[in-house]
């Protein structure tokens, strides 16, 4: 295992180059003319304007040359200029990443807590109504279209009963706190602005539940399966024989022993949350990387599409590698082999 991680770390730069190449080539097969994103329909009839725009955006050069230029610029941290925002793609992404991370982390916390609790209950009350409910809850999470669940919850909790705020990260009437970490909740705390903090936190609730639900199911299934195995072991019997209370038996003796697989599935789920965030952000008008990707794809903003795909792929790759490393560190049997 350790060997394998070493090999994969060495392979990382090559896979990253592969990601960049693939993102670049896939968008080069386009049938639509990316110029329509920058030149108005009327101007498209004017060959001079079209030629000038083609030259300005470098679209008149052959593909291999464009690729080399792109990779060269990328090494300097330059991902080109967005057709839509007319700002550097890298600056756009840096500005939007914290919003995505804030959503994903909060969804991960909610998803893990719900998943673990449901998994423990399902295992403890195996083959009862509790177990069945947990199973249905988990199947629902992996079957529901996340964008529809988001709309439904928005309608019920924000429009109908007005318990929670609508889309966005913070009430537009409040002035957002100065950006330090980019996390709206932490920044408002740092600024000592409790009104903004409460509002930002309330805005996080619905999207985090929607997103967290998708992974809560997977986590609860895994917790259940592992707990069933552990609870049959002899040390559980010993603990009970020594008179330990049921809660202590389940948590200290049972759950503690399945922590490694649970932590592994939670960190893998991080990568899936990044995927789910794209749709969640689109529904909740969350100004993160996902909604940026959606806008870019809709308006054929190719520099932005390539940039966001590369960043998403890199994040995916790094989280998975870190998970494997953490797995080795947490598991002495794997570590010593």
């Amino acid at each position: 295992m350790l060997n394998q991680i070493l090999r994969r770390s060495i392979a990382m730069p090559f896979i990253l180059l592969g990601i960049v190449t693939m993102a670049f080539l896939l968008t080069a097969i386009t049938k639509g003319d990316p110029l329509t994103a920058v030149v108005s329909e009327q101007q498209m009839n004017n060959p001079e304007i079209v030629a000038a725009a083609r030259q300005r955006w470098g679209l008149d050069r052959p593909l291999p040359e464009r690729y080399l230029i792109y990779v060269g610029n990328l090494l300097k941290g330059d991902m080109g200029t967005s057709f839509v925002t007319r700002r550097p793609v890298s600056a756009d992404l840096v500005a939007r990443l914290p919003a995505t991370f804030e959503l994903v982390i909060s969804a991960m916390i909610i998803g893990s807590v719900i998943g673990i609790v449901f998994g423990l209950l399902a295992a403890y009350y195996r083959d009862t109504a509790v177990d069945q409910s947990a199973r249905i809850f988990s199947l629902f999470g992996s079957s529901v279209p996340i964008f529809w669940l988001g709309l439904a919850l928005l309608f019920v909790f924000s429009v109908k009963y007005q318990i929670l705020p609508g889309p966005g990260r913070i009430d537009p009437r409040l002035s957002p706190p100065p950006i330090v970490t980019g996390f709206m909740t932490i920044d408002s705390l740092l600024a000592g602005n409790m009104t903004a903090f409460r509002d930002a936190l309330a805005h996080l609730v619905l999207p985090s539940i929607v997103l967290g639900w998708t992974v809560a199911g997977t986590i609860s299934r895994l917790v259940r399966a592992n707990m069933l195995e552990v609870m049959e072991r002899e040390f559980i019997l010993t603990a009970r024989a020594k008179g330990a209370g049921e809660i202590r038996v389940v948590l200290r003796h049972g759950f503690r022993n399945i922590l490694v697989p649970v932590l592994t599935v939670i960190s893998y789920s991080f990568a899936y949350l990044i995927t789910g965030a794209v749709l969640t952000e689109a529904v909740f008008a969350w100004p993160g990387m996902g909604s940026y990707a959606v806008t870019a794809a809709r308006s054929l903003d190719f520099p932005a599409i390539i940039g966001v795909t590369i960043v998403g792929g890199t994040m995916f790759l790094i989280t998975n590698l870190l998970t494997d490393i953490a797995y080795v560190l947490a598991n002495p049997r794997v570590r010593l082999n």
Partner: protein
Amino acid sequence: MVGGLVVLIWLIATLFPTWLAPHDPLTIAGRRLQAPNATYLLGTDALGRDVLSRTIHGAQHSLPIALLVVVSAVVIGSAAGAISGYKGGIIGAAIMRLVDITLSFPPILLAMAVAASLGPGLRNAAIAMVVVWWPVYARLMRAQVLEVREREHVEAAVAAGAGHFRILTKHILPLCWTPILISATMDLGQAILLAASLSFIGLGATPPTPEWGAMISDGATFFYSWWIAFGPGMAILTVVLGFNFIGDGLRDYFDPRSSK
């Protein structure tokens, strides 16, 4: 059982939508934005079309596309995985590196990039989904082939002088299909979800196609008329649940260990 029944109902809706749908999905049936009532059980949309009929007709877009995508992904992925697992060598390694790279993208981002480049439309969305999906089966099939290849009956076949093609198709592949089948059933549901997601974003079906994701997107525009999105949302939920139930059942049947 329940899963099979739900999927069966949706299959009927796919093949014979006019049997079930009370109205035409494309023509304007009544006043716009009517809440559900006796004539229009799920209400009417922003143009006055019947939501229930559009939802029923939506099945003939979502189900065949999901089937087409999963079958193409299984065929391409299995072929690539089998070659890579059986032959190995430079070609095998090259295939697996391509698989590694494709799988290191968040699926929806990659599908969005491909769909955007190809232009909107369900056909292009389907191509984008195959691009994202085949590596999953390549990896699965390769692992299977690597394991089966070492078994004794294969050795016997080699000793008997069978050719590579015959060994692969007659002695190895028949033993590899179970996990692929289970995974493909589950993926039918996931393919419906992904296709709807792409349409919701605006990269799949184009109007006036009654596609579920596109209908939910309409519903988001007319947010206060909640019934526009209710029908298609329930449609996706039930059909995906159905496929997941069947997949779960298949797994329990073929691999009793996992059901405990």
